[in-house]
């Protein structure tokens, strides 16, 4: 790598300053920053989808609706059926306090659960592929009318799809950032070469091979790509670290704490990525430009 970046032991033949140098550094920094934001968004969306999937994957509920005087016997019959149904593990009736907590956002605190004809919930843990739902529902209808089995498929699947879609979008945005970075850095490489056309001409006429010239330019552009990428990534990590903590449900947040393994990995890989992109883009641009000069 060092040999690739240093064509010889002398001073650089490519000027170290000038507007083209700043274009490359600024472009790499902007791309590094955007890459961090997109990657953080991708990671957050992936985390969200995984959490939802894990939270609801093994759980289902049975809601039991009946007159106040009959509700306890209906619940008991439903529990009995559930406990003898293949594909169902633990069965637990939610307490009055848990029901009250669930209803509180809509009906307020201190709800008189014992007098209101409220549906009651039974939490069911699914095992393996879960129960044969139509057969289970038929048994519930027969023995505990008003009991309704719900494995949350209807609303869970679109939510997980949405989270996964969001994750895909974030990765697509990251890919676009990478492609844009490649394009911008290729243009910066061309600008660098155009800005140093006289240098290229002279160096070539005094005996430099195209490979030597290309290596000198590519090394310089790659180093600028690395420096810019590192600065942009560091700014991105700091910006995400400065966002307010999301609190409960932290998987929804974009926060990235500086110093954590993820942030360190991003700080290593994003600059390496911008360097690799700068190397590739510069190689293509410089070889093409050299074939046009002289």
């Amino acid at each position, binding site marked *: 790598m060092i040999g690739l970046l240093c064509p010889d032991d002398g001073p650089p033949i490519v000027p170290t300053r000038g507007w083209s140098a700043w274009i490359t550094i600024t472009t790499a920094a902007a791309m590094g920053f955007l890459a961090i934001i997109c990657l953080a968004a991708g990671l957050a969306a992936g985390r969200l989808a995984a959490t939802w999937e894990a939270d609801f994957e093994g759980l289902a509920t049975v809601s039991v609706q009946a007159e106040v005087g009959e509700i306890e016997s209906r619940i008991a019959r439903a529990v009995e059926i559930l406990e003898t149904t293949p594909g169902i593990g633990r069965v637990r009736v939610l307490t009055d306090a848990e029901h009250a907590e669930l209803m509180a956002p809509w009906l307020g605190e201190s709800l008189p659960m014992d007098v209101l004809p409220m549906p009651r919930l039974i939490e069911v843990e699914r095992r393996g592929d879960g129960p044969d739902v139509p057969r289970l529902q038929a048994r519930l209808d027969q023995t505990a009318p008003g009991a309704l089995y719900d494995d949350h498929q209807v609303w869970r699947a679109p939510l997980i799809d949405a989270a996964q879609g969001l994750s895909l979008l974030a990765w697509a945005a990251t890919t676009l950032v990478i492609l844009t970075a490649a394009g911008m850095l290729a243009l910066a490489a061309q600008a660098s070469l155009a800005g140093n056309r006289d240098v290229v001409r*002279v160096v070539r006429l005094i005996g430099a091979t195209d490979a030597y010239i290309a290596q000198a330019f590519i090394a310089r552009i790659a180093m600028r790509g690395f420096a810019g990428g590192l600065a942009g990534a560091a700014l991105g990590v700091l910006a995400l670290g400065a966002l307010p903590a999301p609190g409960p449900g932290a998987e929804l947040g974009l926060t990235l704490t500086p110093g954590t393994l993820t942030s360190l990995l991003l700080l290593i890989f994003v600059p390496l990525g911008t360097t690799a992109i700068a190397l590739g883009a510069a190689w293509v641009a410089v070889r093409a430009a050299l074939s046009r000069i002289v």
Partner: protein
Amino acid sequence: MISLSGVTFGYDGRETLSEISAEIPQGTFAFLTGPSGTGKTTLMKMLYLEHFPWSGQLEILGFKPNTLYEDEIVDLRRRIGIVFQDFALLEHITVMENIALPLRIAGKRSEDYREDMEQLVKWVGLGQRMHALPPQISAGEKQRAAIARAVVNSPDVILADEPTGNVDPEMGTRILRLLIELNRLGKTVLIATHDLHLIRSSKGQVSARIYRLADGKLTQSGSEL
């Protein structure tokens, strides 16, 4: 030996050099003269392999540039020292680093040529300016640095395009003297110039051939103006 036989070249389809023929034996000191715009620089560019003939035969040091591969052209360029009209020094590196550039490019290590370099820098009178950047030195110093860079590789041929064009007469005489010294070491020296005073001042110091370009044709050659 440089040999041109019926060489034609131009830009954008228009001929600048037409049916040029000449023989410049190894060790010759020669001037290429003629009014401005007659193609002197174009011919020099062809001799230092920036341009290639449209037609005719060009031969430099036994090689026909039109038939060479890229790496062979690079090897041939390393046997030709060029003093550019505008000095063409890299402005972001020092005088010393500019002079050493052909050696670096040829893959030589700085510790192997440092002493020779210092002698060369002193020979061209830039001992005190070797660590200066080109924008910090005068035109005469730039030209001497350009001459040192042209000879650092010990080339067989030295091509100087208007080497005194941007310096005062006294400095011009000094630069001419340097080029004559190089010729005495066996180098072929070809100087493109429209400065007849420079050609006259070489009389008595060196036996110079004079090639005259007019309207894209080499119309006169010999040892007198």
